[in-house]
């Protein structure tokens, strides 16, 4: 409950200084959980978030590409972020969601275990990816430190999937 005061304070701050908060100093993100880890993506890259629906398998693709599904008449690819990030869990339960994001102009849906919340992280609290991640730095945009001490990995969504990884050029 100690946080309650903080929240109220923050709200008051937002009301009194809305200008400051919406400027570039703050990243607006949506947080979610995949496996054990918490990730976030920029809120503006998200088209919509839906509950899981049926999909169709597609041959000759890596295991993290589950297939395609119909979203109001459009055929969208479905990527399982749990498999992509080598998480053991692949169940679908009541918390599982499809996040539809625009990547290089194309809508793509990602399966995640659970949504957490919308986040506003001041840019100064976002650090570049740590060195140990250097081999993966292409998909990690940075690491955000929340006020409550949590660490969130911010994904560089344009790099999460690559066409050449999915459909290898055959002769």
């Amino acid at each position, binding site marked *: 409950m100690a946080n309650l005061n903080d929240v109220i304070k923050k709200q008051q701050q937002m009301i009194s200084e809305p200008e400051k908060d919406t400027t570039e100093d703050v990243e607006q993100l949506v947080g979610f959980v995949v496996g054990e880890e918490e990730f976030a993506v920029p809120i503006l890259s998200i088209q919509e978030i839906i509950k899981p629906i049926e999909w169709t398998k597609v*041959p000759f693709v890596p295991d993290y590409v589950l297939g395609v599904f119909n979203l109001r008449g459009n055929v969208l*690819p479905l990527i399982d972020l749990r498999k992509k990030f080598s998480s053991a869990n692949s169940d679908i339960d009541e918390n599982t969601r499809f996040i539809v994001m625009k990547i290089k102009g*194309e809508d793509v849906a990602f399966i995640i275990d659970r949504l957490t919340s919308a986040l506003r992280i001041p840019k100064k609290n976002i650090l570049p990816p740590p060195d140990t991640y250097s081999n993966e730095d292409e998909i990690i945009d940075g690491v955000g430190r929340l006020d409550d001490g949590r660490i969130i990995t911010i994904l560089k969504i344009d790099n999460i999937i690559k066409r050449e990884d999915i459909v290898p050029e055959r002769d």
Partner: protein
Amino acid sequence: MDELQELLEDFLIEAFEMIEEMDQDLVELENNPDDLELLNKIFRVAHTVKGSGSFLNFDKLTHLTHHMEAVLDKARKGELKITPDIMDVILSSVDAMKAILEYIRDNGNDSAPDVDVEPIVQKLDAITKGGNTTTKEEKQNTQETKEESGKVGDFNLDEITPDNLDELDLSELSPEDLDKVLDKLVDDMNTAPEESEEDFEEVEENEENNQESSKPEENKENIPVKAQNTAPVKEEKKEISKAEQKKEIKKNIISTKEQTIRVDVRRLDQLMNLIGELVLAKNRLIKIYNDVEERYEGEKFLEELNQVVSSISIVTTDLQIAVMKTRMLPIGKVFNKFPRLVRDLSRDLHKKIKLIISGEDTELDKSIIEEIGDPLVHMIRNAVDHGIETPEERVKNGKPEEGTVWLKAYNEGNMIVIEIKDDGHGMDPEKLKQKAIEKGIITPGEAENISDKEAFMLIFKPGFSTAAKVTNVSGRGVGMDVVKTNIEKLNGIIEVDSIKGKGSTFKLKIPLTLAIIQALLVASQEDLFAIPLSNVIETVRIVEEDIYTIEGKSVLKLRNEVLPLVNMADVFEIEKVLEPEKYLYVVILGLGATKIGLIVDRFIGQEEIVIKSLGEFLKGISGIAGATIRGDGRVTLIVDVGSLMKLAKETHNKKLATDSLNEVKKKKEKPSDYTVMIVDDSAMDRKIMHQALDELGVSVIEAKDGLEALNMLKQNDVDAMLVDIEMPRMDGYTLAQEVRKYNKYRKLPLIAVTSRTTKADRVRGVEVGMNEYITKPYTKEYLQNVIKRNLHI
């Protein structure tokens, strides 16, 4: 400037259209050199191009067409007989004209540095002059004989046509003569009023001319008094009726002119996309109606709903056809250039060949028309070069000296068939095989096993060329390969038939459109696929014993053909979960010249589907052309038959279809190899059943409700289920429904164990897919018997 640009574009469109027709007309003219109507038509083209060209300041073009016009004019007047040599010059001048026009289209001026018109102009001039001297006397003779009947003043009446009026000076004519001329002109107009756009201008011209020509009439009024009384009155009457007739003609022409408009193809494409969406929505609507019909059987509103759904479905189909038709062009557009091609080739090769074209009105989608031209050129060249023999050879074999090539187009269901047939020496399957072995295309072993029909298909293999000597016409061994690739691109099929000594027939079967297609839906294991119906030759049901193994590859003997056979699940690396059944279902696929048999697990049916892309990330997956959304909202993948064939070939080389069938066959000998799942929320009931089953020796697993059962089913290999009906979270009926949704559990025995005994309960059980119904209480033996019967132990 814009206006000029527009004018230029109109000029080019018109000119190219006319030239296309002209090519054909010229060849026909060579056969009928006296056909005046043809001559006039050709003359008019040159004349129009010259006229418009000079207006647009295309001097080079004008220069050329002026000389062409002169030659044609002479021919038209009967002063020149068209010989093949003269025709060669005319044709080359038409080619030069085409080249200049193309240059204008690309560069906006007619400097066309690659085209040198001077030599052609000189030849044309020579013809004009030569023709003049040789035929002068003849002309005079004919004039004299005609003098009695058809001579008007200095002119021969027959010579005067609406087209050359402006070149003649009619002012000298007497009123009577003028009358005759006018009469004739009206007759001419009446006999040929349907003559297309450019005539419209000519009618106008004529009208002006007539007005002009009536002027001297007025001048003469005061000369002979007698004539003044009679002639002008008569003239006036005539003038009125003529004016009316002309108005009529003009109206007709205007109305036909306004019935067509040019539309940007992109707009039509957009329309086609929208209709694609509509077709999807329609399919969905029909599916929903069927669901609703089941649930509310006998309700009154169903009738109304049915009416609405059917009328929407009919209108959608009609709309689709209507828009498809707007994109259709007659194949004559492509056929038109072939008479010229055959003529030139036969002269080059010193053969005598007649080309008979039919079905040029058959319509095809614009995009297909654009793709079909090149392959057809190759096929026609091939027929002329390789098919038809030399005249000497033909005579020796007791055939008419002149060979014939037939080019025919017609509709067959959803396909258009283009047939190229020749009465040449045909193909020798043995020779073809020999050749293929020499070129290393097939092995001698393979050669023994291929049928005559398959041997003919060898000509489509890359690197195969049958002509002993390579001519500049064909024989480089690329042509037929290109044909195959192009036809495959259009999802078409090639069929070849040939009788030695009698000739060959090539049939190209091409789907009418590309965007919305008819498809055969099949299931391979749990996955559905849509196969374009245009590539499905037939479907057959076989048993495992029908599969033969030749050189370590699976084949299917179908009538007198031997087809490679592969399992679709192997091609797409689909995990096998279904046990093979007694009958196997095979789709015979045809593409270009290749045929294969594809084993699937079930035929679902035929459906109209709209092709959608899989998007940037997934497009280009081997064997998949795209996806479609079905009536139930699910996505079904569409097979790309071309790349599927390639994949199938790889699979065929490394995997026997019979092996893959046996992969799933499980060896179950003793009772403990079988697993029975008990689904019941009561621990006591589970225990009772468990004990009974233990006595049988089978393995048992337990689930507390439907949801748990479903999850366990996916993780365990279950051979039968005992299901309670009343359960929390998911009841027995729903569980049965869910289980039956999976192909692989279609035959899994589901046994309801319940105290609900009414008839309605039993019916419901059957509806959701229960196999047996055991009412509580039951004896241990009864339960054991039911299980034994269902597991066949």
